[in-house]
């Protein structure tokens, strides 16, 4: 296995004091099978800092009440905390207005919302939706469903052997029937950082809006939705140190305004009679029913935590650990990377001899190492690379080079157990 070149995504930043960062995460003190936990499954979900855990507890202990409904003190407090979180998230992605930040259950729901409401209103038979060959299932299936319903066609940008989109094929796919493009900022299976800004500009030249699946983007680098000029940006709180069950759809106000609501219910209306209903303003039009209030407030705390560390510093630290992992693992004989993209973020995906990823996962688990093994909800990517499954190690702000060494040593244990490799 030769050296794999990785370019830092964000360039150098201020150094992170990792030892101090680790102390913020109570779970990192746990042991697994008698070994210190080495948590390398951050692309699935990240661990939570104490500040987030305590913020959620404080909400339940001192503020719990429904929002946007009561005139009583608790409800006012909870409403303010909820809306403050919206403001924090808006600043985090540099959106122009709070009303462009819609709270949903996660990236999956955000994409479903756009497919259903934007796709539902704008797709006709023969129209086209463009996605890439490296999507997570959540950026495939919602589009498949709406395309099927409308008689529209799903077009897929191919990827090359390194795991980069083939730009020239992308350009050829954009055409007069293309109604929307949906792309991952960062691939969860390969780690590819897509040139989304350039791809968005390409689509916009033909008047086509672009949704960016930012589930793996937002946790790892500064996202500026206005600089990207994306029309929609979808991401999940739990992958960026916040609670599960909450996420965000950023959408340009003009597009969100023109879309029909997603679900009907309380909070999303102004007036209701049996004859007609007048919908509420943004973002409430898309937030029917009692939302995940604790989750949203926790997400706000997570954003504050990340901002406090400095997202550039986090990014630079992760790039350093990643570069070390690429170099260290390239030296493990029998290991083959799946995906060697020009620019990658925060994760490596690999196979090891002919040992199945699942067996590797079980053996590493005995060493206290948590990695993801399987198809990573990206079966078309596995097919593209001709493997049934890979092992994925993904990094966060608290991971260290020493943990990469533990992983590499764990692989030697796999080799011993499976006689060679």
């Amino acid at each position, binding site marked *: 296995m030769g050296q794999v070149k990785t370019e830092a995504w964000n360039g150098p930043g201020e150094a992170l004091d990792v030892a101090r960062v680790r102390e913020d995460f109570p779970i990192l003190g746990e042991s697994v099978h008698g070994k210190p936990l080495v948590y390398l499954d951050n692309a699935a979900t990240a661990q939570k800092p104490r500040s987030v855990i305590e913020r959620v507890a404080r909400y339940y202990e001192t503020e719990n009440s429904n929002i946007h409904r009561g005139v009583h003190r608790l409800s006012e407090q909870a409403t303010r905390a909820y809306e403050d979180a919206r403001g924090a998230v808006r600043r985090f992605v540099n959106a122009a207005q709070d009303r462009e930040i819609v709270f949903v259950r996660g990236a999956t729901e955000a994409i479903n919302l756009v497919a259903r409401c934007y796709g539902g209103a704008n797709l006709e038979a023969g129209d086209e939706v463009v996605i890439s060959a490296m999507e997570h299932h959540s950026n495939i299936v919602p589009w498949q469903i709406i395309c099927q319903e409308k008689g529209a066609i799903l077009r897929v940008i191919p990827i090359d052997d390194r795991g980069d989109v083939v730009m020239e094929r992308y350009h050829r796919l954009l055409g007069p029937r293309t109604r929307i493009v949906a792309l991952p900022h960062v691939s969860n299976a390969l780690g590819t950082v897509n040139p989304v800004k350039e791809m968005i500009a390409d689509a916009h030249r033909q008047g086509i809006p672009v949704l960016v699946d930012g589930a793996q983007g937002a946790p790892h680098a500064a996202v500026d939705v206005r600089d990207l000029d994306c029309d929609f940006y979808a991401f999940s709180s739990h992958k960026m140190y916040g609670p599960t069950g909450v996420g965000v759809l950023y959408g340009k106000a003009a597009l969100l305004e023109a879309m029909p609501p997603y679900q009907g219910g309380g909070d999303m209306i102004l007036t209701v009679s049996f004859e007609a209903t007048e919908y509420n303003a943004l973002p409430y039009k898309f937030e029917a029913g009692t939302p995940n209030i604790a989750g949203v407030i926790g997400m706000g705390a997570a954003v504050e935590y990340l901002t406090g560390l400095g997202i550039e510093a986090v990014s630079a630290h992760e790039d350093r650990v990643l570069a070390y992992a690429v170099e260290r693992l390239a030296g493990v004989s029998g290991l083959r990377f799946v995906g060697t993209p020009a620019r990658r973020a925060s994760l490596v995906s690999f196979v090891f001899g002919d040992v*199945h*990823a*699942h*067996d590797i996962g079980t053996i590493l688990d*005995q060493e206290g190492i948590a990695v993801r093994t399987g198809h990573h909800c990206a079966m078309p990517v596995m097919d593209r690379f001709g493997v*049934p*499954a890979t092992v994925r190690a993904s990094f966060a702000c608290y991971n260290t080079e020493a943990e990469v060494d533990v992983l590499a040593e764990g692989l030697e244990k796999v080799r011993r*157990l*499976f006689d060679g490799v």
Partner: protein
Amino acid sequence: MSDLRDLYQELILDHNRKPRNFGPLADANRSARGVNPLCGDKVAVHLHVEDGRVTGVSFEGTGCAISIASASVMTESLKERSCDDARELFERFHRMVAADDGAGSAEAGMGKLAAFAGVRDYPARVKCATLAWHTLRAALDGEDKAVSTE
């Protein structure tokens, strides 16, 4: 801490390296496919059944060491058993790996299949060990749609 050698016994590693009865079965009259959507393991089980007895059996597929070895050992332990016997063996195998009736007693009289008893300490791997068996049952039942471990 359980020892990995209890899970990855030599017999299992050996059947994974050299699966027995692997490939299509020329005179198969029952077949079924199984998938484990969680990890993408796929297996097909082919049977030749005559007068209520399994007279021929083979399997094909891809998967982890546990699922391949389990399929391989299963094919060896099925030949010349009656269909009812085969079903009964599945029940016993399932009880053993899922530890339904407590650890220890279930592997008695299981022969080579007892090598899979260690799986009960790894709940996430029970489906790997039983995929081929679920598929077998579908083949015996004459179901031709793919079975899933989910």
